[in-house]
């Protein structure tokens, strides 16, 4: 390379003689060396990596203390990823037909190899995600992380909670068993009690007057496309705001770490 560059060279040069194209690809992947040893290289490596830059290069001591966050946000995100992958896998066998859905669910449980694992991970992961999101919300509340400048992210978080509950509700109908049928019958009837918008909202959700084939398709599309899509978008906004609001909530950076929790 002839041009002068301010980028640190790879910590160790590749052994075999790579030139031209291959060398460019290597350098594009490991711009700061495979494992940067110095602080500057490590900083560059962190904030030039999509996945690592979710954390700022400098982190408050409070943010690193596990008992401060209990890792609830990360757990919720991990659960969402698990649910996305297991959900897509379930889609290979399940389809939202009033005559077939229940049988497909039974087949997943008994006939398909590892089908019961995917189904159960999806089911229990979903229950857990609702719980963890609510606990995350409680943590944010108790550590005062909803206060300025983070009040906008609190609102995004409320939206994410509602989307999580929406996913939970729409997914509940898909096994198409008695429990699902009556739960959604009751649930959409409750929606119908809302003033003015209630009855049309119920009709929109069900695609008719009773829980039937139309309702199953509508809930399926909401569950596998619309709600996860919205949740992904707002999840990105949520993470971005964490960085823009200066990382996790913490007392003044110069303060010593608090003993015994609380602020």
């Amino acid at each position, binding site marked *: 390379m002839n041009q002068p560059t301010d980028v640190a060279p790879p910590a160790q040069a590749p052994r075999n003689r790579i030139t031209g194209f291959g060398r460019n690809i290597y350098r594009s992947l490991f711009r700061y060396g495979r494992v940067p040893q110095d602080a500057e290289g490590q900083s560059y490596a962190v904030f030039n990596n999509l996945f690592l830059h979710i954390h700022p290069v400098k982190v408050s001591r409070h943010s690193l203390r596990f008992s401060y966050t209990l890792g609830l946000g990360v757990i919720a995100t991990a659960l969402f990823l698990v649910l996305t992958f297991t959900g897509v896998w379930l889609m290979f066998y399940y389809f939202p037909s009033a005559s077939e859905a229940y049988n497909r669910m039974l087949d997943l449980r008994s006939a398909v190899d590892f089908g019961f694992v995917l189904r159960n991970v999806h089911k229990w992961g979903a229950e857990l995600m609702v719980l963890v999101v609510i606990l995350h919300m409680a943590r944010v509340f108790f550590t005062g992380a909803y206060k300025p400048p983070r009040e906008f992210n609190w609102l995004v978080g409320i939206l994410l909670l509602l989307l999580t509950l929406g996913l939970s509700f729409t997914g509940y109908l898909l096994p198409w068993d008695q429990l699902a049928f009556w739960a959604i019958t*009751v649930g959409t009837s*409750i929606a119908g009690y809302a003033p003015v918008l209630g009855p049309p909202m119920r*009709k*929109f959700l069900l*695609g008719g007057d009773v829980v*039937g084939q*139309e309702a199953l398709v509508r809930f399926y599309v909401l569950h596998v496309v619309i709600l996860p899509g919205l949740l992904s978008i707002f999840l990105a906004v949520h993470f971005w705001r964490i960085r823009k609001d200066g990382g996790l909530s913490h007392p003044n950076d110069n303060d010593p770490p608090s003993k015994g929790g609380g602020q």
Partner: protein
Amino acid sequence: MKKKNVRMQQPGMDRRTFLTALGLGGVGFSALIAAVGNLLYLKPAVDYGPPSVIRAGRPGEYKEGIKEVMEDQRVVIVRDKKGFAAISITCTHLGCTVRTSDAGFECPCHGSQYDNDGYVTGGPAPRPLDWYQVSIAPNGELEIDKSVKVPPGTFFKA
């Protein structure tokens, strides 16, 4: 006469503001039309649900004082001295199926209770059970139209 600066003296907005407003207004209007179109698309236009008119056999098959539950149709056929009636067994509270009881009907979900005519006697139900129109089909069978509601106490003389 001196030439006046016409542009400065015009009342209201200048050209840039006007064109900006026009552009934004156009975008907003298009978005509104698109939103309405999408909502209309999602509005159920065709009813794929079960048919609302059902047949319930010949009147002679029902003895006086009987309450014949048609579980799949979610309706109960009642015959007494006054005639025939078709009462919905969908609870008016949250849509569960009510079951017959000694006093009339009761809902297993949240404990709503109704008398024999479907009037609420207890629990959270906000209104009486629906009564559907009963008539005789051309082939002599009882015909129930679940899309037509009649006041409670309306019996059909066969």
